[in-house]
């Protein structure tokens, strides 16, 4: 049955690929140079342009496996939020758990509490020290104003920050001078029920730009194995503001703030009546970039972030973060580019264990985090050697040093790189403070302050090819050795959270894009991953639930302009099956297709999007099933 399904799916994927070929008439003269030359300058100023995504120099030269998702890739995929947009990077495994939860990881160890990924939005770290993972339902952005999402798989070395073990996701929104004018969109659908978004950008002053934005959405429920509706509808509203100030040639100051509030339907254990679990979030961030000279510049960033989230059984969590970060880049001599930085973060986490049988003790923890890094690029001829180290200290772990060495060789059209790194995943509250049951009863399962950081030695290599501006692709391979990985073991009559597991993982990642012609672009990739995860010698437990990873996954995105006003886009993806563990069920392999058909004019666009079209519903993790759905979205620009 499963084999038949995959044959059918691959046949469909092939068919989808070929129907994306642009069989249109030759009347799009005006998008070619010859056509554009015929226009008067006024007409030229009336043309809608598709903007080139500006990938900063450093990304094309970075000796890491990196994939970039541009604003246009997101818009043309029909993705409705950040996790759906992240499916457009094949080095990430994205599984939707239920209507408001996603589990996302790179290079393995994907679980409900996936904790090996560093995720940042405009420099603000959004993983929660509660369990080291990301609450994706809190990260709602106006997709229209995202500039790009950089996805690095592997420990990114010192370039991005602390706690990146398997990868880094860096989401960058456009500066407000690039989002001037108004944008409004209204959408309605079967799973994305309602969606309203607006943004207005203007300037207070020729050097002071701003934008204000707001968004509201309500999303429907997934479906259970039995066919019954799951209790997981939710909705969210947010309002945000950003300012960018360019006082002079050497300074840039940026300020952002956002407020959001939402509510999720959750199930109580005693009754099957749906309860209401609200959440809210606020943050304010300021960044100042100053250039001393062409050779030296620094960035100073300060932010405050707070979220409050309630779950079933009256369990709630309030997390407040204050962070200061300073980075300085300086070119020394002819060959050295030195980057160094220091950071201090203060996290105040308060938990209410409600009526839950298990929880965190103590309920409140103050967690100061100190970090520093040094990163030196030495360029000689076509070689570049990078030596870096990161220092990290939090309240649970001793000081950790994470060194890394990278070597790359660049020639016309290609770059080869290799790297060795050490990375750590610092203990989170779930590792140390967990108690089941809660005091005063003696604990059956308990965390421990002896829990040490998980450690990784990563060996990676890769090659990147650029063939003109029309196509580029990259292939990378890795071998990771994890030690002192999380375990729950029977020690002296108690189940203790300890570091009793180890693993080796290995794999390969391929991705690329091909601008076939002016109106057809393809991008995609595939990833192979395998692991050997087991208990350490003389430790008696089964760690297989720590890693719900697929061996193979692939996706292809086709973006086609049909003549002048129409767009027909597809994203087809395939994920291998996830084997069962003692805590999780098998998730069968699946292939699915999203399609988008849009009519686009100067200041108006209407898009009809179908998601997960190939089957009525399918499961991506555990047993909640994601339904086939469609939505219509109309947008205005003024």
């Amino acid at each position: 049955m499963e084999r038949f399904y995959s044959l059918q799916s691959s046949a469909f994927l092939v068919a989808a690929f070929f129907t994306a070929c642009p069989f249109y008439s030759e009347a799009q003269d005006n998008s070619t140079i010859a056509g554009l030359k015929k226009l008067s300058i006024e007409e030229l100023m009336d043309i809608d342009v598709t903007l080139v995504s500006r990938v900063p120099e450093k990304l094309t030269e970075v000796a890491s496996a990196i994939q970039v998702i541009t604003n246009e890739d997101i818009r043309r995929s029909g993705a409705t939020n950040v996790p759906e947009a992240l499916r457009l990077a094949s080095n990430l495994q994205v599984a939707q758990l239920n209507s408001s939860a996603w589990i996302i990881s790179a290079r393995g160890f994907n679980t409900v509490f996936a904790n090996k990924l560093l995720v940042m939005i405009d420099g603000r770290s959004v993983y929660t020290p509660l369990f080291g993972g990301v609450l994706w339902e809190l990260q709602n952005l106006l997709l229209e104003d995202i500039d790009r999402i950089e996805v690095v798989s592997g420990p990114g070395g010192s370039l991005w920050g602390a706690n990146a073990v398997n990868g880094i996701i860096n989401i960058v929104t456009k500066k407000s001078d690039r989002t001037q004018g108004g944008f409004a969109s209204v959408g309605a659908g079967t799973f994305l029920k309602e969606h309203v978004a607006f943004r207005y950008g203007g300037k207070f002053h020729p050097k002071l730009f701003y934008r204000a934005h707001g968004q509201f959405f309500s999303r429907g429920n997934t479906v259970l194995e039995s066919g019954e509706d799951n209790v997981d509808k939710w909705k969210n509203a947010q309002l945000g503001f950003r300012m960018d100030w360019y006082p002079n040639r050497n300074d840039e100051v940026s300020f952002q703030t956002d407020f959001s509030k939402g509510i999720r339907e959750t199930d109580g254990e005693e009754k099957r009546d749906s309860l209401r679990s609200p959440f809210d979030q606020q943050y304010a961030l300021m960044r100042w970039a100053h250039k001393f000279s062409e050779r030296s510049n620094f960035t100073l960033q300060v932010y405050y972030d707070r979220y409050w989230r309630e779950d079933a059984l009256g369990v709630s969590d309030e997390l407040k973060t204050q962070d200061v970060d300073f980075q300085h880049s300086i070119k020394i001599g002819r060959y050295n580019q030195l980057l160094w930085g220091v950071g201090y973060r203060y996290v105040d986490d308060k938990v209410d264990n409600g009526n839950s049988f298990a929880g965190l003790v103590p309920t409140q923890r103050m967690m100061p985090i100190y970090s520093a890094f040094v990163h030196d690029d030495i360029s000689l001829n076509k070689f570049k050697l990078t030596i870096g180290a990161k220092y990290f200290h939090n309240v649970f772990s001793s000081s950790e040093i994470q060194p890394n060495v990278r070597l790359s060789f660049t020639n016309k059209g290609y770059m080869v790189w290799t790297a060795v790194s050490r990375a750590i995943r610092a203990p989170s509250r779930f590792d140390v403070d967990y108690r089941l049951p809660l005091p005063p009863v003696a604990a059956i399962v308990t965390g421990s302050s002896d829990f040490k950081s998980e450690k990784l030695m990563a060996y990676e290599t890769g090659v990147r090819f650029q063939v003109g501006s029309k196509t580029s692709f990259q292939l990378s391979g890795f071998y990771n050795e994890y030690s002192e990985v999380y375990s729950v073991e029977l020690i002296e009559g108690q189940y203790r959270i300890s570091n009793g597991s180890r693993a080796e993982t290995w794999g390969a990642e391929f991705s690329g894009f091909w601008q076939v012609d002016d109106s057809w672009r393809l991008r995609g990739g595939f990833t192979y991953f395998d692991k050997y995860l087991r208990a350490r010698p003389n430790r008696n437990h089964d760690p297989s639930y720590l890693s719900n990873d697929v061996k193979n996954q692939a996706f292809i995105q086709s973006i086609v302009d049909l003549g002048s006003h129409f767009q027909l886009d597809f994203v087809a993806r395939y994920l291998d099956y996830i084997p069962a563990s003692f805590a999780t069920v098998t998730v069968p392999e699946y292939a699915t297709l999203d399609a988008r058909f849009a009519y686009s004019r100067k200041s108006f666009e209407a898009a009809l999007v179908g998601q997960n079209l190939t089957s009525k519903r399918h499961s991506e993790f555990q047993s909640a099933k994601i339904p086939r759905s469609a939505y219509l979205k109309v947008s205005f620009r003024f």
Partner: protein
Amino acid sequence: MPTRLLSVVLLTLSLSSGFAQTASEYAVKAVFVFNFLQFITWPETAFESPVSPFVIGVVGKNVFGDHLEQVTTGERYGSHPIVVRYYDDAVNIGECHLIFIESDYTEWDAVLTERSKKNTLIVGDHANFLKGGGMIRFFVENNKIRIEVNKDAIEKNNLTISSKLLRVATVYKK
């Protein structure tokens, strides 16, 4: 279900045609650059001989692909054939009449100080470009290309700008 979807897809594919209104950012900018030659006057003293080339220099990454060549093939500025040259950095720029500095090239102010006395039109993408001494800046508004023009800087370089171009541009005021 798959076959039904396929027929819908094929049906929509046949609905194309019409007056094109979208183009890629740098194709449009390339045509703008060519238009600058029609609205700005370079003095003959800027050229070695009546048939020496009008040189367009692109500094930094080549963001135009082959669009600039496509626009300028067989075209002339007066009697001067138009030639496009690419430079990785400011150090090696030869004689140029129009320089375009792409937005990721960070040392653009070095180019400006070097070129400010010669008969060169300097065009760029950076937010602060005109503040720093640039002459024409491209910016994007509602997905359309716009230009901001520093008339004084242009005239200081012995170039004359036609009022037809000033009319459609945002004029830069200190």
